[in-house]
């Protein structure tokens, strides 16, 4: 399955690398929000990494998709969570209910 398909398969999708501790933080945040994101570790998949970068993911990890759309990396997620936009997007994508 290609990257785009994977990104659309669940309401919340996070592409990570097992060595990336910032990815760990963003995963923790999503779990804390009750979002149950689909996690894809891309440690050994150079093709998928390249696909993510081509989709505009910069930095490539963590790459967060909500409702099939790229939302951003750690900095974006934190900013959007602070102003309430992240929760809004998660509710719209039915990743969470409130």
């Amino acid at each position, binding site marked *: 399955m290609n990257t785009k398909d994977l990104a659309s398969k669940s309401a919340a999708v996070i592409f990570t690398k097992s*060595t*990336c*501790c*910032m*990815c*760990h*933080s*963003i995963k*923790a*945040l999503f779990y*804390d*929000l009750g979002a149950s994101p689909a996690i894809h570790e891309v440690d050994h998949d150079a093709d998928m990494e390249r696909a993510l970068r081509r989709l505009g993911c910069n930095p490539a990890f963590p790459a967060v998709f909500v409702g099939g759309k790229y939302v951003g990396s*750690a*900095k974006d997620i*934190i*900013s959007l*969570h*602070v*102003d*309430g936009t992240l929760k809004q997007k998660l509710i719209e994508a039915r990743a969470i209910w409130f």
Partner: protein
Amino acid sequence: AYVQQLESSRMKLTQLEQELQRARQQGIFISSSGEQSQSMSGNGALAFDVEYGRWLEEHNRRVNELKGAVSNHAGDGELRIIVDGVVAHYEDIFRIKSDAAKADVFHVLSGMWKTPAERCFLWLGGFRSSELLKLLITQLEPLTEQQLLAIGNLQQSSQQAEDALSQGMEALQQSLAETIAGSLGSSNSSGNVANYMGQMAMAMGKLGTLEGFIRQADNLRQQTFQQMHRILTTRQSARALIAIHDYSSRLRALSSLWLARPRE
């Protein structure tokens, strides 16, 4: 005799450095006139301490201006200008910290650029936004229902983001510990030397990610600060900025008292 002279000069220099550090911790701004001393902390740390001291001086000046405007019953328009100025000036410190973290992440992380009592509350190289908001809720009454809800949400969001970043840091510590442990060899074989170098290289990579955590922690502080001002009226923002300033000043005063306390 020459060696003795050298030794006593070295002791004097160490003494002076200690006094300088102590004085800085007491909140006294001491300007270093361009002399780059070969102190252990390095030039990046020293440069940041100086810039931070300058920023703090300017911040104090602006907040005093704000206090004056408030006590003179200035109109909303005039207040807005001063408040916006303080908020914009806050942006400067985040930029300065970002540069400092690139130069010497451990200095920023250590909090040695803050006074002792402030360091009690240190989290990832700075203050906790969630704690700041807790303080402000008590200082800013009365707030409208809508504002209370918004501030409450903001507090919850910043707390959640703080927890998430803390968890990432713990994962980093764990990972680093495992890497260093993995470099420990039980025999002197050439395989172990290669293992050592490989593990050290990995550990270096992990240390490099610390800067990212400081950056996101500061990003969180900055975003929370800006969001707070969107929720508050001009007058409330003014009171908030004054409350934050006075609280920090109290902590710095506490540090001075602590450092000057009589010891048996």
